């Protein structure tokens, strides 16, 4: 937050702003992009082409993310999880193999 007395510097007028993560669909894209979809595909959680063995539910992915970042493991897109997902970050995935 801007320190009292310091004028907040406006963003560069030309810069578009990264879309925030607000919904489950947004969160699913985020989790797939950064390597939390054990099926390896991006965006397709119950994908047929990876066969019946690959059942990685949205809740599992959320719990995985919450576990490794020491958040309460609720399996739900709660405020703390949303808050962390919306923090600026490195765009490399969190698993080198991914």
């Amino acid at each position, binding site marked *: 937050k*801007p*320190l009292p007395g*310091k004028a907040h*510097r406006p*963003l*560069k007028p*030309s*810069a*578009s*702003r*990264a*879309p925030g993560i607000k919904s489950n669909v947004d969160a699913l894209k985020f989790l797939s992009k*950064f390597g939390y979809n054990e099926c390896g595909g991006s965006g397709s959680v119950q994908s047929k082409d990876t066969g019946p063995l690959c059942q990685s539910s949205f809740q599992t992915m959320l719990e995985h993310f919450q576990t*490794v*970042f*020491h958040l309460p493991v609720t399996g739900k897109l709660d405020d703390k999880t949303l808050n*962390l997902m919306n*923090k*600026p*970050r*490195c*765009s*490399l995935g*969190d*698993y*080198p193999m991914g």
Partner: protein
Amino acid sequence: YSAFRPWPNTTLKWKLNNQIPTFGREKTRIHLQEAFDDWARYAPLKFREAVGDEQAEFSISFNEGNHDDGFPFDGAGGTLAHAFFPKDGKVHFDSAEEWTDKYDGFGYNFRLVASHEIGHALGLAHSYDQTALMYPFYQLMQPKDLLPKDDRDGIRALYGNNEDNQPTTFASTTAKPLATTTTTTTRKKKTTAKGGKTTKTTTRKPQTTQPQVLAHDRCARYMDVVFGGGPDKWLYTLDYDLVWRYHPDFGHWDTSGIPITDVFQGAEPHMMAGILSPVTKKIYLFKGYRVWRFSSPNSLDSGFPRRLFGTGTPYNPIAALYEKGHIWLLKGGLLFKFHEDKLIYEFDRPPKRISEQFPGVPKNVRTAFTYDGKHYFFTEPDRNVYVFDTKTKRIESDYPKPMTTGWFACQ
């Protein structure tokens, strides 16, 4: 930390393709050099900017949105930058971000993000330690706190230790040195064409670091413990209180030893025998009557070290080998079968001699290890090495050989 893959060479060059408009080229270069120094301070790595059309390992650029590497940036906020693991070397920053060189919480400090991305380009993946620079989410840190311990451990796991903790850089003979670069000189007499007069220019070559010589000694020395065969393919050697590693793919040793307690937390100096079980993937270190068990180098299993009991338990075994699902421990020319599950020894009556189990291997074994289906026995005082092939159950035809050339880390 998650150490993924190192560069095979440790003298690396970077090329800046464009810069932060508000910084200009010079300021961008200076902060990049600071970011490289963050890593050079804790690992035997040397960095400098490429000159002219010199080939560089790292290619650094600022892009916006799609920039055809399959990882488009997303505008201000969101993702800030990314880099690729060795030996790719590309480092990209989102030019739509509010980059700053201040540490006051406004904007994103370029030096911190650059240091994080260079960590990737050097082979480190993200860390879940929130105090780490390699933590995936941006967090403000003060320069005096760089590098946090987790990142120091990570870069040392990849490149070994940088003894004197000074960032070392090298300058090309033609480069205009950056303000922070130390110039190197060679001690040779040069003639210059000025007016036909000979003027002596004294220059000094960078010191070859002592560990290089030590590395060579590594071949001719006995090490307390040698074991390998893990997924990371490193051959670990323990030499009193230091760990030296050899990687067969890169064909070189660590350029300097890493304190044993930095690699095997909970271990003690002067371990006597060690092995990595290819079945359970556990690492066992033996000393006296005790055994340490690690699930990975830096995680000692709870309850360890443990005291081993039973009559006839060997004190300070000199080596551990792996064959057909069990561990042999060697002591006094005899073999003791160690059971991983029960953590006890079983020995035959009469005890089995080394030469019975491994025909052709003499009694005077000083140390030994198993790697990739072969046992390497080092003997004294003749300082020879015997390589025993566990498939053919024979000593390989052209062995024994002198230690200095006869084991794979020195061929």
